[in-house]
């Protein structure tokens, strides 16, 4: 029994040691950890290439210019503290004209607004207010909008006098700003207009004391036209809320402020001047001085002197003293007090007191100085012998103080205006960017934003915003082409019906085609565009359309000419390219949006007037709002791709659910490129080029090398000599030059598929010479072996000896060197595409994608464009690992 068992295990061991050669190689290969790693990476890469459509959340060719250079989309998990799974927010990325930086914003589209009166909901074109729905007719161009006042903080006062405020951080405000402007121009977004009333409160709270002060100043002076100023202020309030501060004439306003302040001061000082000075009057004046001192404080705060003071800066002390010259003139020892204060602050600082506390201390000091000033004035008045001279003195110093005060006011005003201007300009820039994008998406046939482009373009001309004659002609061009659009779309649909092999048009269909063609020719012949290249393009299309028509009219043997007619039709349907080239010209129109400052605003107003239907929420407190969020999901239906090159399928591994077709919603896991195309999707599609070119190129090279080297080594003699000289010559031409030269030999403007084939052949042409020499050497040595001689001796023909006996003995070498050579092709293709000689846009290859990152500026701002390089790296690395492992595995010594 035990013996049997022993025998059995021995047998098993025996069996184990006698594995087939293939199994042995696999075993040796498996030992090689890096090789296995490489193999896995390659398997994943090739799977990626095969299932490219399935893995891409976006169409790799679809441009989305609003997302140009958008960074990887942030994925959020929590919304208002609640876990919501994975979701993204709509986003936009654009170059900020004013800072010339590329900015990326997540936009917040409101879904609902909660006010004191109830909930305002907006969903799929219906706005509901507390259950009551607001009807609006979109066919008449009516829209409902949410509009937010743009501010750092918005205060809302409710009917019962409660105050609500939404604290907006800077960034937050900007986001809102985008949502606001964008929604305005995008059809299908529903908004409720909150602007005017809420904005006013907001502005009032923001202008704050300053605004009130201005009003009191103005009101106390009869000389100034009260009504006029009220109106002015009103206007400022509203305009500011809309971030349109252009109409504020700052200088004029300053004048009003200073006049008002001076007059008011005069009115305070008048009784004093007239010698009717009393203690009360002096006190009253003193209170004003107190206010001015506080203004000094504010100014010192604004200019950063208080910080300097806290740090014990003497310059700051002197500066504040000079700011407070009115105090000095009254007789307060500002300098001494400040020095003491500074010393005190220094002590506090060393004891680690907070800055806020120190600021409070400074403020207190200023207050006490103010109080002291009042006291001083009154005491001085009582004590003084010459009351008249004293009052003169006070009047003098107060006048100086007023000037100082006016300074502070103006400074504040300027600062505010600056801020407004910035926000306004930003808003304008955004409007213009939106306009541009609107035009672009219209032009490039995206499914959003239908007729507005033309409306806006016409408007620009009507408003005489653009006096560029080219602009008009471009719009005319566009109109003309648009009239062609319907025809070619019709033709395309006809084509689509029977462009499949084996299906021929029926007689009725022939008629249909004929009328369509005739219509096209008639229309197109009368057209003349402002751009010559478009004209010539159109002419050639007309020619081929006429050709088709001729064949059609020959009638009898319709079927015979079928193919030619079809060709003609195809050409006509390529009228689309004309549309595109005209459109490309009009994109220039969109760009004008950037260069004409008024355009955005005007378009904005005009558009708004026509479409807005407002619900005014007067005096209602807005408490909160909800945003639309878009969920990230797996196995999601989105763009139409082709599963395994064949089966049309809309299902993709992952993507973002976008039920309302919001063009701002994208999921770029690796960012977007210049044209807003998804980098990840492009990488996936590019892998098809990069991964296949290596293998196909390798097969061609080795095929050539085998034939060449085999023949040369087998026959030897003069044939060998000649063939090897040829190989040597090809080897002596420097590789990369030969590559570029051969590429230059072939036309540049050919489709990517043809370029791909050309690249394969060029790359293999360069590679074969070296390999064929090695094979020749191997064949030479194998040729002398006995089994070959035996094969020759039994009279096998040369070809058979070579194919059956000689070449198979080189397989080990071939497999290893082939694997190690593949990276060369991948790198070759990448370099050529990088130089712009390989695969062309809009098709993708890893090298071409890297070429986008050439510019240092772009690279710095969009480093994700470098990712394709990592894919090249890992692919090449893996091939090297696998090649190394194969070499070890196939080495007879390691087979043991």
């Amino acid at each position, binding site marked *: 029994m035990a013996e049997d068992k022993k025998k059995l295990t021995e047998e098993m061991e025996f069996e184990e040691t006698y594995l087939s050669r293939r199994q042995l190689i696999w075993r040796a290969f498996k030992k090689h950890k*890096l090789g296995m790693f490489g193999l896995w990476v390659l398997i994943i890469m090739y799977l990626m290439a095969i299932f490219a459509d399935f893995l891409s959340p976006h169409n790799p060719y679809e441009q989305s210019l609003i997302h140009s250079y958008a960074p990887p989309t942030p994925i959020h998990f929590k919304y208002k503290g609640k876990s919501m799974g994975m979701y993204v927010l709509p986003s936009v990325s654009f170059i900020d004209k004013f800072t010339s930086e590329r900015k990326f914003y997540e936009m917040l589209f409101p879904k609902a607004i909660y006010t004191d009166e109830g909930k305002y909901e907006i969903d799929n074109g219906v706005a509901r207010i507390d259950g009551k729905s607001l009807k609006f007719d979109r066919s008449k161009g009516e829209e409902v909008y949410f509009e937010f006042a743009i501010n750092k903080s918005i205060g809302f006062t409710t009917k019962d006098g409660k105050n609500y405020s939404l604290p907006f951080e800077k960034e937050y405000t900007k986001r809102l700003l985008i949502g606001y402007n964008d929604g305005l121009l995008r059809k299908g977004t529903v908004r409720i207009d909150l602007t005017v009333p809420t904005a006013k409160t907001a502005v009032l709270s923001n202008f704050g004391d300053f605004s009130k002060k201005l009003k009191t100043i103005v009101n106390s002076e009869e000389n100034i036209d009260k009504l006029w100023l009220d109106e002015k202020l009103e206007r400022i309030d509203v305009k500011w809320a809309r971030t349109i501060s252009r109409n504020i004439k700052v200088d004029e306003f300053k004048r009003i402020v200073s006049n008002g302040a001076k007059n008011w001061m005069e009115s305070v000082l008048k009784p004093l001047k007239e010698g009717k000075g009393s203690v009360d009057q002096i006190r009253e004046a003193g209170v004003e001085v107190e206010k001015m001192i506080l203004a000094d404080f504010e100014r010192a705060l604004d200019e950063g002197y208080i910080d300097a003071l806290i740090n014990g800066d003497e310059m700051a002390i002197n500066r504040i003293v000079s700011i407070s010259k009115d105090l000095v003139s009254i007789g307060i020892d500002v300098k001494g007090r400040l020095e003491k204060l500074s010393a005190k602050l220094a002590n506090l600082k060393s004891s680690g007191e907070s800055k806020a506390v120190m600021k409070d201390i400074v403020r207190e000091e200023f207050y006490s100085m103010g109080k002291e000033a009042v006291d001083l004035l009154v005491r001085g008045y009582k004590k003084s012998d010459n009351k008249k001279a004293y009052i003169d003195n006070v009047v003098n110093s107060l006048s100086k103080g007023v000037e100082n005060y006016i300074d502070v006011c103006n400074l504040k005003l300027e600062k505010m205006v600056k801020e407004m201007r910035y926000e306004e300009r930003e808003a304008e820039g955004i409007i213009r960017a939106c306009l541009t994008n609107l035009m672009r998406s219209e032009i490039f046939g995206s499914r959003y934003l239908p007729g507005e482009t033309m409306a806006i373009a016409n408007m620009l001309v009507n408003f005489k915003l653009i006096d560029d004659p080219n602009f008009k002609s471009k719009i005319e061009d566009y109109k003309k082409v648009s009239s062609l659009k319907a025809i070619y779309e019709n033709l395309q649909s006809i084509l689509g019906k029977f462009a499949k092999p084996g299906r021929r048009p029926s007689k009725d269909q022939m008629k249909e085609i004929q009328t369509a063609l005739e219509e096209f020719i008639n229309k197109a012949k009368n057209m003349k565009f402002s751009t010559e290249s478009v004209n010539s393009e159109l002419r050639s299309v007309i020619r081929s359309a006429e050709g088709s028509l001729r064949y059609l009219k020959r009638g009898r043997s319709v079927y015979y000419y079928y193919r030619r007619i079809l060709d003609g039709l195809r050409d006509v349907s390529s009228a689309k390219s004309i549309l595109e080239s005209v459109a490309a010209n009009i994109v220039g129109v969109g760009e004008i949006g950037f260069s004409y400052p008024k355009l955005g605003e005007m378009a904005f107003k005009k558009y708004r007037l026509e479409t807005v239907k407002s619900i005014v929420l007067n005096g209602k407190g807005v408490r909160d709002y909800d945003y639309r969020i878009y969920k990230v999901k797996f196995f999601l239906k989105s763009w139409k791709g082709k599963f395994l090159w064949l089966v049309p399928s809309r299902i993709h591994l992952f993507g973002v659910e976008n039920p309302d077709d919001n063009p701002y919603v994208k999921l770029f896991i690796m960012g977007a490129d210049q044209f807003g195309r998804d980098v990840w999707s492009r990488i996936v599609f590019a892998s098809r080029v990069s991964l296949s070119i290596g293998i196909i190129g390798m097969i061609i090279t080795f095929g050539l090398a085998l034939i060449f080297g085999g023949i040369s080594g087998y026959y030897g003699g003069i044939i060998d000599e000649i063939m090897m*000289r040829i190989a*040597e*010559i090809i080897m*002596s*031409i*420097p590789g*990369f*030059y030969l590559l*570029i*030269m*051969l590429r*230059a*030999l*072939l*036309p540049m403007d050919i489709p990517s598929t043809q370029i791909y084939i050309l690249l394969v052949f060029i790359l293999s042409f360069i590679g074969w010479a070296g390999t064929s020499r090695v094979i020749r050497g191997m064949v030479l040595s194998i040729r002398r072996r006995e089994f070959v001689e035996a094969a020759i001796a039994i009279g096998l023909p040369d070809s058979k000896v070579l194919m059956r006996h000689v070449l198979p003995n080189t397989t080990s070498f071939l497999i290893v060197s082939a694997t190690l050579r593949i*990276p060369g092709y991948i*790198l070759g293709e*990448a*370099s050529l595409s*990088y*130089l712009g000689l390989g695969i062309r846009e809009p098709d993708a290859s890893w*090298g071409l994608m*890297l070429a986008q*990152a*050439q510019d*240092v500026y772009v*690279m*710095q701002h969009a*480093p994700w464009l*470098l990712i394709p*390089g990592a894919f*090249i*790296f*890992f692919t*090449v*690395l893996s091939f*090297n*690992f696998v090649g190394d492992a194969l070499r070890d595995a196939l080495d007879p010594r390691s087979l043991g």
Partner: protein
Amino acid sequence: MLKYIIRRLIIMVPELFVISFLVFMIMWAAPGDFLDQYRMDPSVSPQFLESLEKELGLDKPPIIQYGIWLKNILTGNFGYSFYYRQPVSKLIWGRVFATVILSLSSFFFSWILGIITGVFSALKKYTIWDKILTIVAFSGIAIPGFFLALLLLYIAANTGWFPISGMVSIGHDQMSAFERFKDILWHLVLPTIALGFGGFASLMRYMRGSLLDVLNEDYVTFARAKGLPERKVIYKHALRNAINPMITFLGYSISGLLGGAVIIENIFAWPGMGRLVYQALIQQDVYLVMASAMISAVMLVIGNLIADILLAAVDPRVRLE
């Protein structure tokens, strides 16, 4: 030996002749010629074009053009560049300095570092150092040169440690000699790394493999057995033999010295031959292309010859006939 060299040199002549003919014909067969860019421009008159054609010799059949070029070459005249309107020799000479300085620096970078690290990693076989160096080497072989260059550029642009383009700073002319030297060196760092890293990695792997092979040889075991100190065994017996196969590579890398590196030079805006020739190829500036192709071919052939000679010089087992 001398006979062998002379024979090789004699074979070289017809080879170069065929290469030049091939290159010329490829250039000629490419669609269009240098004047195409003028033909597209409606503001250039046909008379002017014709005169230009005559001046540049483009109106003659290609075989005659080639003949003229060949005749000129034999008298030391490399022809005129169409685009630059300058003698080709002058143009190339102007670029040689930049190219050679870059090639040499990357050559030394890859060789010195490659051999040192190769020996180091062979002696520390299977330690953590060896593994790290292996990873570095594999990365170096796998990373495309232009991608590495872009990465270096990205780092330089973000940190400001190195200049991102060109060979000299703006104020180069005002600098003292030493400062100029430092300036060029500073600009040289990134292109050198980008260009030499691949070579460094493969040399390191070769050196490691070759030394490991030699260390397994019987004579090394014998040297150890007879009680030689390990240092002597390695540096006197093993290393000398291990370096032999590397000598061949040395010859091959000579051939690349004047070729320039098109992509790296493009990325770093290095004023070398690579960019000149690339542009010439795209513009079909025939004589410029011809001259540079011939220089590269000559360097390649001579490099191979030098490699063979060097190998024979170091390795007494190899005999040239």
